[in-house]
Each structure stands twice: as C-alpha cells, then as structure tokens.
C-alpha cells in the first residue's frame, strides 16, 4: 500500500478515536478513491474552493465522511490540529456527517441519509451544462445505496440528459450482498446510458487511468466506475471482524490498528 494510503488511514483512525464514533470499514474501503480524485483528477484546491468552475466532490455515502477529512487535511484545506481538537463536540464544524452551511468551501453537500447524493450530483451536473461551466462532478456512492429508488431515478435523468460531465463512483465493498443481489452493475448502468468501467478500488494507478480515460470521452454519456473494494482494507482486524462496521477504537485498539496499517 502506498505511503499516502497509510497516512490517510492512520488519520481516519485517530479522528474516529478522538470523537469515539465512525464507520471505519466503510471509510477504509473508499479512501484510495477519494484521494485519487482530489490528488489526480479534480480541478480543485483550497484556493479554488469557492470558484464557480471548480470540480465538485459529492459524498453520497455520508457514513464515510471520515474519509474526506484526512484527504482535505493532506490537501491543506483543513488542519489536523483544528479537526482533532473539536471533532464531535457540541459546536464543532466537524462530525460524523458534515453540514456545508458551517463552511466557506471544502464541503459540498450534507450527507447522512442515503440515496440523496447521486441525484444531487446529477442536478449539479445538469446545472453545469446550463451554465456552460467546465466544472466536473464526481459522486461517491456505496453499493448499498442502489437499493434506493432515487438512485435509479437519478440514473434515468443523467442518461437521458446526456450528462457526460459527471462521474459516478460506486464503492462496491459488497455491503449489499448480504441483503439482496444487485446483479451486474456495469450492465445495469450501461442500460441506463452510462459509460462504465470496473476497477480495483484500492489500486490508485488503475483508478487514475480509468478516471482520465472516462473524462476524455465526451460522448454524451455519464460515466460510472464500479470500484471493487474491501471493507476495512488496510487492517486485517478490521476486514476480519464485522464489529468494525460501526465502532471507534479505544487507546489500545488505536495502537493495534495503526500498527496494522503501517505494516500493510
């Protein structure tokens, strides 16, 4: 695992420990995707965080907001000092889900209720077309969110309005597999008019290559990347034990998990 992947995971672990909450399995499954977008793909920086033509990152799987903070710390939007001192406290700006009304840039949507982020991102993409803006929209969804009807409603709209300025990324950590079978998502989304790709969601090189390839396809089709990931990727304890679906590490666990990440 690349050094940055380890750094981001250790920061997420630490923040979860500080606020004693979080869904770390889900955070670890998508961190490499979020980093690749911010580091390699998006027309975005802290200085451009309010630019009208910036690219948008919409987090639809809001339970993984702890994946966003480390990325924005490494990108110098926020500081670890600020977040660690207040995360989860009464008047904090930072918590398990985030409220954009408390920020001047950096956070683009309020998540928490599943099935909202994708249609919201589709609305931004359509607005970008109306405004003739070069802004691209990247939206990170969980595979489990596709049980919600609003996700498919958004897909109908994106396909029929030819929103090739948006990219849907499904963090496919097989959370839905325990409930129902979604079948072949590439095939399903292709039927809705998407250009689709299936990648290893922990291989940053493959992710970057795929995102670039899709961005260059100006063919009137929205893009979808099904990123195959592993819940808790980066820590054997976390991948092996389902309790880490929703659990925050105590001092001892923080030390253990941090060591596992370092050795991964």
């Amino acid at each position, binding site marked *: 695992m690349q050094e940055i992947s380890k750094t981001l995971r250790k920061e997420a672990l630490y923040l979860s420990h500080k606020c004693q909450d979080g869904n770390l399995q889900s955070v670890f499954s998508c961190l490499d995707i979020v980093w690749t977008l911010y580091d390699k793909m998006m027309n975005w920086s802290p200085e451009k965080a309010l630019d009208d033509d910036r690219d948008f990152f919409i987090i639809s799987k809001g339970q993984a907001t702890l994946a966003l903070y480390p990325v924005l710390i490494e990108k110098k939007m926020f500081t670890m000092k600020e977040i660690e001192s207040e995360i989860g406290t009464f008047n904090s700006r930072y918590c398990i889900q985030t409220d*954009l*009304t408390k920020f001047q840039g950096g956070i683009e949507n309020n998540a928490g209720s599943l099935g909202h982020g994708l249609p919201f991102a589709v*609305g*931004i993409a*359509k*607005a970008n077309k*109306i405004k003739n803006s070069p802004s691209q929209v990247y939206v990170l969804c969980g595979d489990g969110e596709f049980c919600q009807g*609003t996700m498919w*409603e958004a897909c*109908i709209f994106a396909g029929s309005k030819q929103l090739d300025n948006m990219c849907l990324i499904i963090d496919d950590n097989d959370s839905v597999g325990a409930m129902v079978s979604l079948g072949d998502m590439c095939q399903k989304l292709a039927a809705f008019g998407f250009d689709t790709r299936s990648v290893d969601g922990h291989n940053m090189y493959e992710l970057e290559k795929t995102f670039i390839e899709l961005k260059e396809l100006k063919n009137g089709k929205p893009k979808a990347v099904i990123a195959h990931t592993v819940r808790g990727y980066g820590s054997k304890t976390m991948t092996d034990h389902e309790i880490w679906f929703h659990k925050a590490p105590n001092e001892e666990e923080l030390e253990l998990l941090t060591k596992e990440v370092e050795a991964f």
Partner: protein
Amino acid sequence: MRRAFLGRVAEMIRNEPDTTFFTVDIGMWAIRDVLKYYPDRCTNVGIYEDGMFSIAAGMARRGLVPTIFGIQPYLIERTLEQIKMDFAYQKLGVNVVGTGAAIDYSRYGYSHYCAEDVQLIKMIPGCEFVAPGSAKQFLQLFNESYRDGHPTFFRVSDHPNTKYDVDVTFGKANIIQQGNKTTVIVVSVMLDEVMKVCEGKDVTVLYYTTLEPFDREALANNCPTDKILVVEPEYEGSLLYDIHASLPGRALQIEHVGFPHEIFRNYGTYEEKMEHYGLTAKNTREMLNKFI
C-alpha cells in the same frame, strides 16, 4: 390560478436564464412553446418527485432558481425527506407549486388529497407555505418570494375566491375588517364564504395567504377578545401553534371550520365535499354564533 402560474413560468423561462422549470408530467399544453424552445431549462421530467427534488437541489447549489410543478400529495409527502435534507438542511431554495389543494381532485380518492400539506411543511424549519386565494394573489406572492432562497410551497386551488380578490403581500395577513366581538382567521379560498357571514358584523376578519411564516403581529394586534374562529381549507388545527404563539398567556377560545382529521373515503364533487365537511358559509355562521 394554474393558468396564471404557467403563464408566469413561460415568462420566467424566456427572460431569466438562471431559472429552471420541471413539471412532473402535468400542464404541458399550456407551456408547449417554452418546453419546445428551452428544453435545457424547461422539462417534463417524468413521474419521480423524490429524485427530482434532489436534482433540483443540486441545481440550486449551483445558483439556479428551480421551480417544480406537480400534484400536492406527491410533491410534499413522497418527498418529505428530500425537503428536509436537500433543501432545508442545506439552506437551498426551490419553488414547489402543487395542484389539488386539499380535495380538488375530489373523485380520485385519498391518494390525491392533501389536507395535511400545511402542517407537514410547517414542521420543517426554513420552509415557506403560500396558499393564494386567486390567480392575482398567486402572482403577487410568487413574484415576491420565488427568489428568496427558501423552499417555498404554493398551494394552487381550482376554486378561487371570485368576489373578494384583495391585494396581498408575502408574509402579511390582510385586515379585511375590524370589529370587537371576535376575530375570524380566514385562509386562502375560504374568504368569499366567510364574508357572506361576516360582512357588516362587528367582528375582525384577518385573511391569511402566507401560512408560513405566519403573520403573528397581525393577529396579536387584532384580537380584541379571546375568541377566535379559524376557517381553513386544510386539516383543522393546522395553525394552532402560530395562534397560541401570537397571543402568549391568553386563555383562548378557538373554534374551527376546516377538514376533520380523518381519511376521506368519499368521492363526489368539490362542492359536495365542502358541504359534507362543513366548509361553508352556513357552518361558519353557526360557529360564529357561538361567540357573538
């Protein structure tokens, strides 16, 4: 009222490039030209209100002014979480214009009725609720509020007042007349019926077309007794909190002419329903006689 709204939409789409309009598969004939010439900003999206609301919120996030047109229960009840999360929580604006009012689709059954709309929207902070009593009032209220950055819900009725068509202001009640024996709060399309009873009587009549935010000041300054009759074309009691908050510490005696809190399992005409549930001048007179 519908025609006035759709005419306003056509004008808005033609002249204001930051506006968008989405109809959930109704009213297309009236705006066929703008649907044809401005397909990017004026669309019949199909029948999916909840996803549409989130999409409209995304547009509002980018500075556009979206307006959605559909049928009241689907615009408000199917989408309640989208209203809460995508608009209210994120402080984004949208205009939601719903036909059907409470029982306009009188033969369609409970699926198409929405006497609970006022209470549902008033529960979500930041939302606005407007119930014009005529086409003129719709335009006055829409023009004042459609760019105010709030989620604003417009209840469009097919049964407007025809005799009493006063000018209205968003967020303000109209003092139709002042008297000493009681205060009548009348909402939206009920004004004609109420005035059949109250005209010339020694009672105050306050006419409300903006139900959220509720004009508490008008009530506080125009309630000479503790007796209040509310005549409202929604579930009775929808304004109780505002009435009490307007008059703190007062031991109020309140009577209602409104829809009872029950599932309507009858059909028939609009007039039959209004008669059945007592939203009439006759029932208003009987209720008022309890006070004066």
